[in-house]
């Protein structure tokens, strides 16, 4: 066997791959479930916090800023570990899936709040005044006039951040979530062969590469002409 053949036989072993393909596929389903949950709840919570912040209630805003800073400072893996290995000491035992979901959703909430907020404050004060002068309420102005302008501005940073955080679903493997990496790792130790890991890597690319490419196009589309 030539070196090349041996390489292919080790890293892209057809038999092993076929055997563990179902595992990797089920891992993909878990990864997708996690990702969708994280994106939906994280962005919704971030937007909600930004809207509350725009009400300008002092003590509430300090609290929001603290929470945002906290989840921006802590490594996601630390939050996951704290939830999964720490909370049980307080008689709360979230599963690995829930720990990963909530941790990453909190992180996305923090980052997206900051971005949404920057977007809202960057809308010119005159827009508020024009709208209020025609009789629209604070809420109507926020929804009809300010948010559409703010969101446009936030799309590029938001997509990049969302992708980066959603990739963190792989961290779930540390707390026994059977997502792609978890399935691939256990397949490697069962088969003594790295091929499942290569499949896992490919699975991540299949899921995330289209999103990254799409994000690049969005970025160009929504880039503001200076």
């Amino acid at each position, binding site marked *: 066997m030539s070196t090349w053949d041996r390489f292919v036989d080790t890293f892209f072993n057809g038999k092993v791959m076929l055997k563990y393909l179902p595992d990797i596929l089920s891992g993909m389903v878990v990864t997708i479930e996690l990702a969708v949950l994280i994106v939906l709840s994280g962005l919704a919570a971030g937007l909600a916090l930004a809207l509350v912040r725009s009400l300008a209630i002092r003590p509430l805003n300090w609290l929001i800023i603290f929470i945002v800073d906290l989840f921006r400072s802590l*490594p996601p*893996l630390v939050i996951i570990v*704290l939830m999964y290995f720490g909370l049980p000491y307080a008689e709360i035992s979230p599963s690995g899936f829930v720990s990963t979901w909530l941790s990453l959703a909190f992180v996305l909430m923090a980052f997206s709040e900051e971005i949404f907020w*920057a977007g809202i404050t960057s*809308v010119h004060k005159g827009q508020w005044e024009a709208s209020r002068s025609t009789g629209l309420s604070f809420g109507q102005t926020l929804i009809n006039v300010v948010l559409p302008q703010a969101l446009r501005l936030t799309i590029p940073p938001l997509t990049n951040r969302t992708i980066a955080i959603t*990739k963190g679903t792989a*961290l779930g493997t540390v707390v026994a979530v059977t997502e792609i*990496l978890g399935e691939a790792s256990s397949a490697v130790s069962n088969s003594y*062969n790295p091929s499942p890991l*290569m499949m896992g890597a490919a699975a991540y690319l299949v899921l995330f590469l289209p999103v990254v490419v799409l994000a690049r196009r969005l970025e160009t589309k929504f880039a503001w002409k200076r």
Partner: protein
Amino acid sequence: MIQTFFNIEIIAAAWPIVLSGLLNTILLSLIVVPLGLFGGLILALLASVKNPLVRWPLMAWVDFFRAFPPLVLLILLFAGLPFAGLELGGFACVAIAFFLNTGAYYGEIFRAGIDSVPAGQVEAGRSTGLSRLQAMGYIVLPQAVRNVLPDLLSNTLEVVKLTSLGSVVAVPELLYQARQAQSLTYNPTPIVVAAIIYFLMLWPLVRLLSRLENRALAGRR
């Protein structure tokens, strides 16, 4: 509750372990950040050659690593390479994985920075007799870095946080040591302490960033 999650005796007992972890985290960051910056700069300089034959593969390279979770990359090196007869150890794997991953991110940032400098700047420099490289080094890069400073800092924050992945491949950094201490003491206090340390260490940077970012976005109206 405080007895469980912030137990003073356990802090005292675990402190040496946690402290050694903190030192390793700092050390790891000091290696990984310059490595990533260097890789990113190389990528961006290559991409500044406006030849599509160079630019497209680089874009693909960058997008590849933007799509690839860093932990998967790390595991691939740590658990995959031994099958090819290459046993690198956790520390080296972390260094290589981060060089590839964060290099791509830094590269993208540097590229955006270089693109943001008007072409007239280079032309002005060349017209005074500077070489291409000199124009890049003396005129374009300083402006580029200033333009994307918030993004560079923000990525650096992410890299420091990412060093916690080292714990998965037994690199004795802060999180790993805290978990060791936790399993020795049967108490979550060490992890809480580690979290507090991360927070205190990175909070100033987060504060600074949120001010810079707000200003940057407001300026783009």
